[in-house]
């Protein structure tokens, strides 16, 4: 899976043409689409939200300045996020943040299992170790109205908010915004493995939060 970064799509090229022609609506749409993720990603490289806002503003100016040189070899999104990440890195370096940049997107070595070890059989007991002792229950009996209720989704949002920053950004880009793994890797300059480890940890924790929430709801009155 070492595909080249996807080239600009027809709609990317159309947006670029519209921007060059001074189309303000096209620019506003681009901002609505990317600004929130840009702010959060910038925030990971610099010390304050105010500096992150500056960085994003500079990135947009950089995008406009560079537009004539945009050749469509990567998607517009990848190109925009590369500009952003470069500016954010430079700003972060100037602030001399203690975090070394190469490690920014390396998964925290938290080593947490996806599922608590107590839920599997241990060695020395009956049954084979590593087999479910307390298996998850199927959610297919839960009505869709409950599963997709505002309260349930609020639980999902809260679980994502509680994640370590890198896991949070990767699950947002991948599962909330629907980016492909390649988009995320290209835009953030992280390896495929790191991206996947961060995503898996994030999803496992959100699943766990949902399981606790739905089980508590399901539990019969004592």
């Amino acid at each position, binding site marked *: *899976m070492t595909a080249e970064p996807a080239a600009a799509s027809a709609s990317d090229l159309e947006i670029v043409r519209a*921007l060059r022609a*001074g189309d*303000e609506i096209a*620019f*506003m749409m681009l*901002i*609505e689409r990317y*600004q*929130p*993720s840009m702010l959060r990603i910038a925030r990971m490289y610099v010390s304050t939200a105010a500096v992150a*806002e500056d960085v994003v*503003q500079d990135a*947009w*100016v950089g995008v*406009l*300045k560079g537009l004539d040189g945009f050749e469509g070899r990567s998607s517009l999104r990848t190109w925009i996020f590369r500009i952003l990440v470069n500016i954010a890195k430079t700003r972060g370096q100037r602030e001399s943040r203690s975090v070394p940049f190469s490690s920014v997107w390396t998964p925290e070595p938290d080593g947490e*299992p*996806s*599922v608590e*070890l107590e839920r*599997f059989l241990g060695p020395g007991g009956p049954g*084979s*170790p*590593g*087999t*479910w002792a307390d*298996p*998850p*229950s*199927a*959610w*297919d009996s839960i009505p869709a109205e409950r*599963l*997709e209720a505002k309260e*349930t*989704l609020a639980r*999902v*949002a809260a679980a*994502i908010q509680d994640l370590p920053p890198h896991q949070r950004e990767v*699950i947002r880009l991948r*599962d*909330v*915004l*629907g980016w492909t*793994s390649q988009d995320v890797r290209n835009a953030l300059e992280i390896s*495929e493995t790191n991206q*996947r480890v961060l*995503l*898996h940890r994030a*999803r*496992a924790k*959100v*699943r766990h939060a*949902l*399981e606790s929430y739905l089980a508590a709801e399901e539990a019969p009155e004592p």
Partner: protein
Amino acid sequence: MNCSELVELVTEYLEGALPEDRRVRFEEHLRGCDGCTAYMEQFRTTIRLTGMLTEEQVPAEARHALLGAFRAWSSAP
């Protein structure tokens, strides 16, 4: 492959990144294990529900500032 190993590989499996032999063992295990089948189903549902969240909107002041930058850029020679 046992259950505690399988739960660590779910994203790798869904991304199509498992090597062939591991993928075969993953699917074999899944066919014979109700607990892991339920786990997979919960995992997929989690991804689906996450996809139903929406992003916040851009505050008006930020939008105005950027629009100003855009106008300056597009009116420049």
